[in-house]
């Protein structure tokens, strides 16, 4: 019976040592906010924090996580979606289907911790998560908003009618 520290609580789980942390979280601990997208650390949908480090949990065997390492999943980021990154995501209406967004948010939180004022190049380098709906530009804007680098609280829209641009 392995012991894990997840979202501030000690949890025990019954899984083979080679089981990826992702599936322990999802199937043993019922934390389904962390998603399976590829199983080979390519898409980032399974991103969680282990002692603050963004980690692709789909390739992290249970046996390599100790009981003292602090795991934070999307469910543990804030009690009420009030983390500054979650609020920025909400303000800019970032998610479409939303399946990748847990991983996106966890990656963004880690980026902002490492670089509170990230440049676009920093964002390109850190945010390698895959989104098939194509929310990338809103993710970028939301990271800048969370970092206090974006004044407006919405993406501008050009609506043009026969009377001209509105």
């Amino acid at each position: 019976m392995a012991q894990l520290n997840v979202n501030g609580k000690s949890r025990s789980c019954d899984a083979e040592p080679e089981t990826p942390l992702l599936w322990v979280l999802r199937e043993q601990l019922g934390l389904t906010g962390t998603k399976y997208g590829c199983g080979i650390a390519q898409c980032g949908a399974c991103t969680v924090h282990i002692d603050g480090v963004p980690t692709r949990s789909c390739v992290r065997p249970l046996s390599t996580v100790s009981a003292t390492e602090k795991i934070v999943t999307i469910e543990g980021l804030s009690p009420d979606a009030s983390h500054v990154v979650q609020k920025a995501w909400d303000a800019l209406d970032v998610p479409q289907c939303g399946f990748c967004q847990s991983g996106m948010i966890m990656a963004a939180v880690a980026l902002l911790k490492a670089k509170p004022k990230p440049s676009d190049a920093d964002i390109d380098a850190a945010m390698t998560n895959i989104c098939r709906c194509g929310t990338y530009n809103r993710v970028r804007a939301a990271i800048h908003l969370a970092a206090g680098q974006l004044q407006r609280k919405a993406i501008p829209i050009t609506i043009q009618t026969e009377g001209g641009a509105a």
Partner: protein
Amino acid sequence: MNAPASTARRFFLQASAASAGGLIIGMHLPALAASEADEINAWVVVQADETVIVRIARSEMGQGTLTGLAQLVAEELECDWVRVRTEYPTPGQNLARKRVWGSFSTGGSRGVRESHDYVRKGGATARLMLVQAAADEWKVATTECTTLKGVVQHKASGRSLSYGKLAGAAAKLTPPAEVKLKDPRDWTLAGKPMKRLDTRGKLDGSQIYGMDLQMPGLLSAAIKDCPVFGGKVKSFDAAAVKAMPGVKLVLQVGESAVAVVADTWWRAKTALDALPIVWDEGVNAAANSTDIAAMLKAGLDAGDAVVGSTQGDALGRIAASARKLEAVYAYPLQNHATMETMNATVRYTPERCEVWTPTQNGEGALAAASEASGLPPAQCEVYKLHLGGGFGRRGAVHDWVRQAVLIAKAMPGTPVKLIWSREEDMQHGRYHPVTQCRLRAGLDAKGKITGLHMRISGQSIIAGIFPQNIKNGLDPVVFQGLSAGGAEGALGYALPDLLIDHAMRNPPVPPGFWRGVNLNQNAIYLECFLDEIAAAAKRDPLELRRELLAGSPKHLAVLNAVAAKAGWGKPAPKGRHRGLAQIMGFGSYVAACAEVSVSKAGDLKIHRIVAATDPGHAVNPQQIQAQVEGSFAYGLSAALFGECTLKNGRIEQSNFGDYPVLKMEHMPAVETIVMPSGGFWGGVGEPTIAVAAPAVLNAIFAATGKRIRELPLRLHSLKA
């Protein structure tokens, strides 16, 4: 010991397996908030606490249709938007109520454009009934009453009643026979940029997707279908894995697949990976992409082509022209690669088959469940769960539902959740059809087009999915965006001598509707070749298009809008070059201008895209903008990276490692112009994808002089 394939569905149950029914205690089924008697009508329920529940028949998969349809209902209902929530009726309920909610199909960018009329009537009818209930209470004429934000008012007497208080009485009234819908110019809620209704659960992990479903006694299944299309299971050695942790059942599914059921999915997958399976690879065992390309190439010259569109004498005019241009383009097979892989949870008993699944067409899933279970549709039910992406994969074909039902049928009473691995999803997609196109044009001495012939050769989606709909060899979907007229996808260019035909060539790979469908490659073929003509005639690509679109004002308007905003005709920033594309599809007019640079080493940077969309009526400009942005991610992912290849009868790609997709670092800035001209209803989820690739390819030509005619781009060097 190998199990012969003839003893299909051979399985064993471990002593510990939960094989009997009766385990499902406390399972919460999605249910409608109100019975038929308590709802005002099928679309609207108002609760005593003033909550307004709007029923949504179409599926939400990220495209925002849930919010847009709710806006349309709420606009007519004149309720308080902050009180609105939504719910899905089930396909079984739709069946039982004579399809009161109409079609559940969510594809072809049809969510809003094909149901706006009846959902608005649902809202308007409910409003009239609430007003009638108030007027009856006050004994006044309905014409003296007004409504605002969920309250009926009688200004003359200063009385008012909220919808919540009136709902009970309103529900008992006979609906009015006729309602008048608002003029969209009078909209106050629809037509406005509104935030989505379904965001919160996507910020904290609480949104339940199909893959996340949990219920008491649930088992999980992993599956492997024969990697060669058309192949079958020859044998498999169940005994080799039956003692592995958590394994409950190893079984053959249909003729071509083997599944393992275990207490967790990871254990099921681990055992499946260890399971020895021998395949009968069948007649396609040697099929490969080179042969497909050769077959399509032969189609370019074949005599059996079916005419999709013809006017004048294109071939004669081209033959008689002083100057002729010719080019061959090619578009590959592509996987949808939804972020959430295919999955379904099924509980089967001899009396009832219940399915929980993310689907773009709940009624299609119901039909698949009925067929696979052998139970009539009335004894089946589908509960739609949120989709982790659809893009057409989860609509027309419910192969994963059939598999899940067959698995659950082997364990009556036990709910089983089937999840495809990414590898299974990559190798058993319903692929974007593979086609080639030869374009021939004649030019006169002044550089004007005398005639144009487009010969499309290749795969037909309809032949692969609905073969009964092929009449006289014609698949009309092949000619998407190239129609002589009509509201769906009219070719805007005035080309009096035009021939567009199709030589159907179907490789042994299952095709599917892939977001944007055939509009994607048709726009590349036509818009890039038009650019070739402009270059050959030494014409400005914008001026040439303007001339040809003079009689198509809506096509022209979106093109002019992007040209103006992008600064066409003015110098681009140093090192940057521009390309244009326009098309009409899914009932909307779209155009794009791409701005790119290519380094000497051949590195492409797409800096900026300006895009314009005229969908007629724009229900939610903010969500249209999100769809336009996303369309460039999807379309440019396809253009830059997307290709599935066939080798030895199987798809060679297995995961995002060998099927790369567009990421943040590749994503250009997108400036969206929403320009609703009114008077029609066009879709927005798909049309823009089609202009992404040709605008960029034309910009690459402007930057490098290289004309890329075969996708994906990553196969080509752009080095100077």
